[in-house]
């Protein structure tokens, strides 16, 4: 690839992404579909703007590696050890079940048993990139479903090594190269090497580089680190992603964790996008044109068999029953590793070339279907939720108040309302919290309150009031915007995390806003004044005056708060003015001490 074509390719990739991804997001399809579509458009079967689809794929796989590195950074070793049960037991169960079902299906379709086993194992693995990207977009990773899925994906990454070692044994061709024990030894050695380097060598080196205070060198180092580890693992015959993940875990407790995250994240985003584009390009539309029936059959069979197997084992790996189809949808696609295994199986004469092409096509298409499956799942559940709501209405069980967010804040609000026999529906997205609260008899629904279908299901059309008690500022504002647009008559009472949030809410016309720590801080201030000898009632009056003047200052900021500089200046002068006024109040009072009224 010469320089000109590199720039040319970059223009094509970036332009395709810039056009397709926002379009897909606008249509509610998610970014993955956008990238895949971009790939299909520019690929050899589309406009044919890019010739090097395969090298792009190879390069872009590095996005997956970076993603696993970042995921590793979020998990310190202690949590990883806690996860060993779900990873090995859950992941093992998933791989075994899916591989068995798929292999049986492939044998039924006429493939030899060796080929069926190899392909079954290959397709049993899911696409880490697609599954995690989809879960991240929907904020599913911290949920039990997300954790179970992630544990499975992690196990697949580990199992991939074993699968690759196993595939040549299924074939008739006898490959040369190292014996199995030698390979295993290299693998263990490479992992030990990563652990040792991550533990003992990296921290001092990173300190040294950080001290140089050349920011881009730290970025360069971060990238270099991940690439070297990935390459070392690759040479040792292990999964690059697994090595990067391991390195991430080792650095999770380092003080440079956030710096590493911030530096790597943009590269990960772009390369992952490129990866999806490459998948889109690699879909063999020629095959689809030649044998559309067989390809469709393969794709359908793959999704149905693997999806059913996943739904079957979902309860056993800790996924709630009502979420098992979501779990199936998330993991039903074949993964990028399947391509590698197919190639290896073909090289070992275990898989005929014709099947390789067919299965590769089916796997690539299955990756493209994931976002669509999830979308379909959403639509179905939303419809079911709507149907449920109508049933509620028939029972006359109308909700008066929806409380979004059931942390400590929302709980107090809700308890106050419940004590007054108000019919409250609570939405929260912390599953543990919800399980606990259900035990206490609260009517709590799991879900992201910023989703329209959920709000509707919670009865937002007929409710009188929405209490926004979520702690995430962006979610809070998104919810308020949504409620304002969709349910204009619904009144809103909101919790503000800070002044900025307070201003944003007021600016949206929400007047019943309380800063979450303001009142308790005033209380503590009063206690402090009392401890210094002030009469309790006087301390209260003083705090009341402070509140009044403080709110005055905030209201003064409201017309200007989008202007950062002006806000800072106004806030500063406002604070001085407030203190000055309070001082004057106090002096005036002191001089009227013992006056005729309160003699």
């Amino acid at each position: 690839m010469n320089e000109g074509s590199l720039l040319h390719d970059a223009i094509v990739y970036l332009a395709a992404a810039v056009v397709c991804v926002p379009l897909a997001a606008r249509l509610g399809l998610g970014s993955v579909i956008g990238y895949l579509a971009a790939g299909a458009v520019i690929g050899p079967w589309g406009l044919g703007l890019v010739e090097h689809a395969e090298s792009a794929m190879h390069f872009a796989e590095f996005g997956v590696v970076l993603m696993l590195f970042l995921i590793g950074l979020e998990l310190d070793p202690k949590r990883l050890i806690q996860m060993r049960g779900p990873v090995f037991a859950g992941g093992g169960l998933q791989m075994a079940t899916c591989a068995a079902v798929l292999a049986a299906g492939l044998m039924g379709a006429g493939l030899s048993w060796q080929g069926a086993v190899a392909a079954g194992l290959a397709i049993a693995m899911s696409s880490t990139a697609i599954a995690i990207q989809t879960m991240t977009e929907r904020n599913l990773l911290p949920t039990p479903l997300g954790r179970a899925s992630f544990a499975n994906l992690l196990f697949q990454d580990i199992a991939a090594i074993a699968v690759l070692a196993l595939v040549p044994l299924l074939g008739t061709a006898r490959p040369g190269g190292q014996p199995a024990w030698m390979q295993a030894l290299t693998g263990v050695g490479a992992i030990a090497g990563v652990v040792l380097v991550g533990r003992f060598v990296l921290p001092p080196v990173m300190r040294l580089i950080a001290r140089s205070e050349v920011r881009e060198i730290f970025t360069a180092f971060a990238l270099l680190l991940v690439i070297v580890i990935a390459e070392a693992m690759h040479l040792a015959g292990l999964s690059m992603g697994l090595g990067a993940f391991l390195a991430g875990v080792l650095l999770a407790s380092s003080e440079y964790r956030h710096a590493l995250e911030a530096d790597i994240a943009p590269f990960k985003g772009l390369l992952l996008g490129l990866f999806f584009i490459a998948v889109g390009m690699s879909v063999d539309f020629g095959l689809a044109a030649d044998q559309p029936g067989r390809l469709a059959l393969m794709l359908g069979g793959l999704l149905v068999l693997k999806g059913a197997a996943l739904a079957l084992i979902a309860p056993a790996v800790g996924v709630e029953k009502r979420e098992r189809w979501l779990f199936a949808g998330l993991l039903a696609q074949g993964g990028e590793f399947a391509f590698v295994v197919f190639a290896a199986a073909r090289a070992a004469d275990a898989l005929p070339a014709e099947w390789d092409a067919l299965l590769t096509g089916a796997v690539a298409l299955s990756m493209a279907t994931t976002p669509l499956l999830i979308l379909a799942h959403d639509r179905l559940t939303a419809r079911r939720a709507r149907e449920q709501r109508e049933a509620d209405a028939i029972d006359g069980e109308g909700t008066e108040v929806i409380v979004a967010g059931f942390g400590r804040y929302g709980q107090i609000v809700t308890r106050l309302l419940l004590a007054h026999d108000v019919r409250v529906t609570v939405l929260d997205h912390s599953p543990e919290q919800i399980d606990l609260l259900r035990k206490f008899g609260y009517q709590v629904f799991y879900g992201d309150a910023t989703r329209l279908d959920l709000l509707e299901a919670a009865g937002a059309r007929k409710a009188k009031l929405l209490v926004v008690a979520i702690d995430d500022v962006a979610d809070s504002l998104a919810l308020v915007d949504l409620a304002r647009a969709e349910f204009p008559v619904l009144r809103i009472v909101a919790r503000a995390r800070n002044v900025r949030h307070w201003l944003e809410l007021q600016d949206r016309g929400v007047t019943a806003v309380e800063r979450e720590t303001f009142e308790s801080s005033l209380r503590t201030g009063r206690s402090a004044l009392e401890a210094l000898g002030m009469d309790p009632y006087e301390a209260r009056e003083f705090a009341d005056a402070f509140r009044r003047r403080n709110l005055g200052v905030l209201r003064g900021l409201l017309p200007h708060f989008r202007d950062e500089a002006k806000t800072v200046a106004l806030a500063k002068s406002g604070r001085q003015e407030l203190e000055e006024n309070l001082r004057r109040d106090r002096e005036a009072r002191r001089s009227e001490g013992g006056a005729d009224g309160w003699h």
Partner: protein
Amino acid sequence: MILVVYAHPHHSRSIAQRALLDAVRDLPGVEIDALYDRYPDFDIDVEVEQARLARASLVVWQHPVYWYAPPALLKLWFEVVLTRGWAYGEGGTALRGKGCLWVASAGSPAADYTAEGLHGHGFDAFTPAVERTARLCGLDWQPPIVALGAHRDSAGLAERAAAYRTTLEAWTRTHE
């Protein structure tokens, strides 16, 4: 037990009321219920207040008179503590037979409390609301202790304070 229900929003800055309270503070068997210290947010604990009243043989209402009436918190205390069925009305016998002493002070001197003076009436024209409140609850109304213009009259204030102390001492001797 003598319960002094004391209401002054700015006790520390007071002259007359502080002197009066200091005169009885140390007497044995006297409990001070300083409403503005206890309930600066006006969130009166009715059960606690009623239990305190139930233990008392003499209830003292001590407060400055401002705009011819008790301070807002004492007025609220009347409203929420002296409830129907407890303090008055059917079954409202909790306070019956207990004594009630009103200890009031006013900023204006006695000269203002005349038909020709600033307030157009003698001070006793402003007593009935409080007195009727006590009597309706079956409390035994004692001759009030009133200090007029006392914050500018230290001799007069000392005399009123001493009278207050003597009254409570006498009550303790005869009733406890």
